[in-house]
């Protein structure tokens, strides 16, 4: 198990290095100039600023410096926000995005497993049809529509009740997080429900479930020990990519619900060609996702002995 984890970690480091390299060269090849803005910029000032950011050095040298800083965990200074360190931006805003993301992933995973198992158990009966209708809705409607519509609905509900059931936007308490997290996790929940349904249907007719019945076990025990645990395996494998989908989807949801997450800064930075912020957040997100995928793999190993032993 330990060698498995170490191997995955080593692979993760290589992946992150690859992401960092790709981002670096991509950034230096996009047209435009981060120093071009409305402020008057004389040649002298420009040279000064370029020297400050190391932009006057040859690209190869910049790359080496950049990697060296990365290893030390230093993402540099923002171009557009004077003297603000990228590390500070991440430190301040990432926890917000992460909380939202984690909550959304929990919603998606728990909901997907629950609804998926239900649809399989009630296959071709009313609960199956109803849930699958919402699943198709959840998969096909983009998250910004769901976000806006649910926000609108919440406004209506709050107005009708005359009290604030849940805050409509903003950040701070758990109550602020519920709706955005649910909206953010919705698409993934729908996708996981579908996956869980087919996996559960397969498991229901599996030979080992027949064996469990032949042993005379109570239905509840067959469900938890023999069906659920095996049916959940495919769901766990896609949990890694699902986390990626949810975190990237977070950018939009953060905007709609006015949540001070990292996503907003990222979008802003792209618009302003803020090299260091873009590279910093991209590499950071990349590393975070790689780490989550490894966590999921290890988790999978705990549930499926066949993976653990190899």
């Amino acid at each position, binding site marked *: 198990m330990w060698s498995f984890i170490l191997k995955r970690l080593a692979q993760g480091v290589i992946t992150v290095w690859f992401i960092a390299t790709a981002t670096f060269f991509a950034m230096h090849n996009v047209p435009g100039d981060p120093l071009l803005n409305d402020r008057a910029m004389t040649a002298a000032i420009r040279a000064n600023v370029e020297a400050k950011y190391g932009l006057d050095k040859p690209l190869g040298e910049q790359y080496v410096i950049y990697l060296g800083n990365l290893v030390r965990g230093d993402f540099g200074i923002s171009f557009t926000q004077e003297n603000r360190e990228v590390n500070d931006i991440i430190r301040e805003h990432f926890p917000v995005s992460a909380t939202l993301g984690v909550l959304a992933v929990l919603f998606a995973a728990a909901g997907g497993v629950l609804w998926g198992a239900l649809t399989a158990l009630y296959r071709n009966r009313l609960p199956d049809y109803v849930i699958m209708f919402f699943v198709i809705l959840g998969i096909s409607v983009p998250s910004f529509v769901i976000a806006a519509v649910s926000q609108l609905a919440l406004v209506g509900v709050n107005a009708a009740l005359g009290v604030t059931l849940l805050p409509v936007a903003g950040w701070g308490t758990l109550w602020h997080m519920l709706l955005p997290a649910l909206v953010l996790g919705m698409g993934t929940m729908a996708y996981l429900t579908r996956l869980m349904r087919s996996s559960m249907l397969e498991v229901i*007719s*599996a*030979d*080992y479930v*027949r*064996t*469990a*019945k*032949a*042993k*005379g*076990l*109570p239905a509840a*025990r067959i469900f938890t*020990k*023999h069906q659920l*645990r*095996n049916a959940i*395996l495919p769901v766990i494998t896609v949990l890694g990519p699902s986390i990626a989908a949810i975190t990237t989807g977070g950018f939009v949801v953060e905007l709609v619900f006015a949540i001070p997450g990292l996503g907003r800064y990222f979008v802003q930075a792209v618009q302003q060609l803020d090299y260091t912020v873009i590279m910093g957040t991209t590499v950071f997100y990349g590393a975070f996702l790689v780490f989550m995928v490894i966590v999921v793999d290890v988790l999978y190993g705990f*549930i*499926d*002995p*066949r993976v653990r*032993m190899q």
Partner: protein
Amino acid sequence: MSEQKDLLVVEDLNVEFDTYGGVVQAVRGVDFRVAAGETLAIVGESGCGKSVTVQSIMGLIPMPPGRITRGSARLRGHEILGQSRIDGREIRGAQIGMIFQDPMTSLNPTMTIGDQIAEPLQVHRGLSRADAAREAIRLLEVTRIPEAAKRAKQYPFEFSGGMLQRAMIAMAIACKPEILIADEPTTALDVTIQAQILDLLQELQAETGMAIVLITHDLGVVARMADSVAVMYAGKVVERGSVDDIFYRSAHPYTLGLRAAMPSNDPALKQSLQPIEGSPPDLFAPPPGCGYAPRCPHAMVVCESQPAETPLAGTGARDHAAHCWLHHDESPMKPAGLFFRESDASRNEKFEGGSAVEEGRNESRR
């Protein structure tokens, strides 16, 4: 032949399945009985309803699409169809154990072997986790799995097929059932392993006195294991009797056909294999008469239109019965190779002392 002696009595069992193509009448009036401690073999070609029969008894038929439309199965006189407990005890797992054809897929891949064997012990006998785990190891030893304590902690993928079938057997006999149903337990295993598993079943039977219902395609396995035999064809039992009845006094043309299609490894009896021409009837619309009639070399007009209810009785040690019009009093012929009631006296002497199990050869008419 008395009811008391019979542990399990199945009568007129009818099972059908709804499918997109219509209703499949998979089992159409199956009768058989199993005495305590004996081995009953159920033989017949693929699709004749062997698995459906035993799965109905075990309550393993998926409903829907399956349906038991008629019949009864009584364990020690208690009806068990549709029941989960009799005599205050769970039937499945506790009173009847079952093992399946493919041990590779019949065990839960994410649970240790030991835990899977311990499960019925905890559920049916109320053993504590620790006691059940200890008993599971003992059961693995009983089924001759080396290093049982270590093996109990392993997962199915770490076992070979033969070892898995041993573990399945350990699980099935954990609560000391009176009957073990084995649905083609060796079909998925290679030949040497097959023999070991069959030996194990026989040894366990000798130790525990449980009855075994063994489903197989292999008449060699029947000769080796069975006390009595039920021959199934197209959802019905066409002939039943002791193993000697079936091998030496075959009374149904289908039984004879099966025997002729069985390979013999005795060079002295060198004979070519004779496959049964044709294929079984469509169970969506089973024929009104004998299902075997279209393939039967001796079929008469009546065979096609009416089922033969004329059993041939009282020849061997147990009731020997064949559903075939040739045994009717007015039947115009008595084809060579088939056993007929009239010849009881003269033929029976010849078989005294001689056992089909040892000789396993075809009888020849003279």
